């Protein structure tokens, strides 16, 4: 482990998040402006084009978890009659609304939104969305999720320029119609107009943002020593993801890339004795991101990548000739398949393993979030078939009650000693 300080941009990203939420509360609570709550895999761009603030559900869920509040809310959930096997990751914010205790909830809790937007990527989503919308007495917009007729190999190569054929035209046609309906509903719910020019600007900005994140990704991947801890990658890239389309996001990504480039040029790494690189697969361990750094000193091993490191580059960029709405449709229509479905999940991760020169992977298989557990077995099979050892850890990404830090630390240590070392 080196004594490198955190990147200066990381503090700026955190500060930006706090500032964003303060501004959000000022606009919403004090000025009475409308805002939207939206799923991560939903087109926030529609609201950006209307100058309507958006709170992403997993962002608030991660904040609750990071503040160690998840055990309280989960106990509350069970007391209300929701059984303990129900999904956790995306439902924490709903439970915080039911709790209705601004003193306890992060940032004082979420006020009533103009609408909630969900995408039907699992069968419970519409139920939680409906209950939540009832609790707030606000509209719920559901975007349906058409199935892909075939998951053809090669999505990382086709997703940016060849997306029309990749995602199948009949699905895109439908998604465009759903977007039009969403725009109509959102205009009615917020009283604000959708601006096509703003969408076009944001779409171009997001493509540019993705290019910068790709440059940062390439720097990290090819550097002799990993220059930035995984937790800082998540903080910086996710801050850009939530504010995609803005000039701030591009400026921040540029600063992030430049700071990484400086470290690489100076030969600086977070672990000076780095011998092994690991991938972190699946959801982030939001209540314990320190875990990613446990093995630098003891095992000269760094966590170098997770899906949050560069999905903004690989999954979000959609280049187009004439129709930004269709490109926006393409952005979200198969995100779940890309991140959680064989073979797309495994295909992308294998590419990352090669690019980042990974020696192994630790896979968080979520408990009580089966949507995020899908594809893990086939992905593990594919990675190990390609020679990359994988350790599977079963826990919930936001429920600290399911995490045994000592045991999992020992398991990863044993994995590194017995399987990662021998794999080299």
């Amino acid at each position, binding site marked *: 482990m080196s004594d490198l300080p955190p990147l200066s941009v990381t503090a700026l990203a955190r500060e930006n998040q706090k500032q964003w939420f303060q501004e959000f509360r000022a606009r919403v609570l004090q000025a009475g402006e409308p805002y939207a709550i939206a799923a991560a895999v939903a087109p926030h761009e529609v609201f950006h084009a209307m100058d309507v603030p958006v709170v992403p559900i997993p962002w608030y869920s991660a904040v609750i978890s990071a503040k160690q509040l998840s055990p309280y809310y989960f106990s509350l959930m069970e007391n*209300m009659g929701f059984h303990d096997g129900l999904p956790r990751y995306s439902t924490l914010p709903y439970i915080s609304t039911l709790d209705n205790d601004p003193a306890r909830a992060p940032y004082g809790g979420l006020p009533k939104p103009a609408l909630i937007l969900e995408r039907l990527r*699992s*069968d419970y989503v519409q139920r939680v969305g409906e209950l939540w919308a009832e609790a707030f007495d606000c509209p719920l917009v559901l975007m349906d999720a058409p199935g892909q007729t075939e998951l053809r190999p090669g999505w990382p190569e086709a997703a940016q320029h060849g997306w029309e054929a990749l995602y199948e035209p009949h699905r895109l046609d439908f998604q465009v119609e759903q977007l039009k309906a969403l725009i109509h509903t959102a205009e009615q719910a917020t009283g604000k107009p959708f601006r096509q020019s703003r969408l076009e600007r944001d779409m171009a900005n997001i493509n540019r943002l993705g290019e910068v994140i790709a440059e940062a990704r390439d720097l990290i991947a090819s550097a002799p020593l990993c220059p930035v801890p995984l937790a800082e990658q998540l903080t910086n890239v996710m801050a850009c993801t939530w504010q995609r389309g803005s000039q701030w996001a591009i400026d921040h990504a540029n600063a992030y890339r430049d700071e990484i480039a400086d470290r690489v040029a100076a030969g600086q790494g977070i672990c000076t004795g780095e011998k092994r690189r690991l991938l972190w697969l699946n959801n982030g361990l939001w209540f314990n991101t320190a875990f990613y750094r446990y093995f630098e000193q003891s095992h000269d091993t760094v966590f170098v990548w997770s899906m949050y490191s560069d999905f903004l580059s690989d999954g979000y960029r959609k280049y187009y000739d004439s129709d930004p709405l269709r490109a926006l449709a393409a952005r979200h229509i198969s995100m779940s398949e890309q991140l959680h479905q*064989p*073979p797309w999940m495994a295909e992308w991760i294998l590419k990352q393993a090669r690019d980042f020169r990974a020696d192994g992977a630790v896979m968080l298989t979520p408990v009580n979030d089966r949507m995020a557990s899908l594809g893990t077995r086939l992905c593990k*099979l594919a990675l190990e078939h390609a020679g990359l050892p994988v350790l599977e850890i079963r826990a919930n990404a936001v429920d600290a009650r399911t995490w045994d830090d000592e045991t999992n630390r020992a398991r990863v240590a044993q994995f590194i000693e017995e399987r990662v070392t021998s794999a080299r």
Partner: protein
Amino acid sequence: MTALADLHARYAARHCCRAGGVGLITPIAPIELVLAAGLRPVRLYGQTDRMPTLADRYMEAEMDGEVRSLFDQFLQGRFAGLDLALLPHASEQHLHLKYYLDEAQRWEPELDMPPVALVDLLQTPAWATSRYDRDRIDNLAQRLGTLGQPITAQGLAQAIAQVNAMRLALRRVVALRSAGRITAADAHRFAALFGAVSASDYADLAGRLADQSIVQTAGLRVVLSGSMRDDTRVYQALDDAGAVLAVDDHVAADRLGGPLVEPETDPFEAVTEYYQLHAPSVRQTPQRPLDEAFVQRCQDAGAQVHICVLEDVDDTLGWDWPRRRDLLQAAGIPSVLLTGRGYFDPDDGALKATIAQAIALAQEAAHV
């Protein structure tokens, strides 16, 4: 074993071995199109009495037991003789089954599996969804027409009439069960044969059940809800406890009986509308009207207690439970919840204890 039990067992055992036919996962596949193409529908069931062996190599244990079992049977080659297997997007789990089957074939090209097609009929109540579904219906009709005979409007209208006859037969049997004239187990077996035998045989079977039914002593009137069931264990336990199953509310039970498909003008539109808005599935939305209709059915049936049984991997129906419990409570019907019931090798002791608890609650409510 009753005659119906024997028929069901014989059907479930033989279908995999027969050549040809179009396999249907879940009873809410568009069976009308299969019939209109002159093809033979073949119901594919999960098997609760066979733990998956091959499936676990690829599929997580968090998947629904039915999906794991079906996946395993595909990998075992049990469905190899089918001309085609249709996988409706009746739940996200069924969509994933399609993806896993495709991937398993990439890993093991020698697997003996039939062609598999996703039937992507979505259920959000929106005009855009109805147009998407119509496109998918047309796409499926074209494919089935190539496999069998071209599907005409007239042919589809005739097929609709046949499936409507099945729905009416099912309603008749549900009424017999709700009146305590046939057992819950037999009614479940009958529902499981929906789409598995011809409409005329199905109606005949309903008639025979009516003829053979007996007037039973009135037992406690129970509502059963929760996860879909591929065996009779829960029903048998209710029968053994002397209960009358007034309402059976899972996606492959009473709600299969209605509404009918109404081909007022274009039969393709009628089929589209049914599968978008009325086909019972966990993807139907919004939930509140469904819950309210459920409570109304319970009241209409004179229900005395509600038992909800959820599979151990449930991540969906548990969200409905508190509201349903509260709505029923307001109607004077107490509820009991059993979670964590395994699809394979379930704990019948816990089930019996839950039924006993429900009986005690109902008796207590009656005294109040």
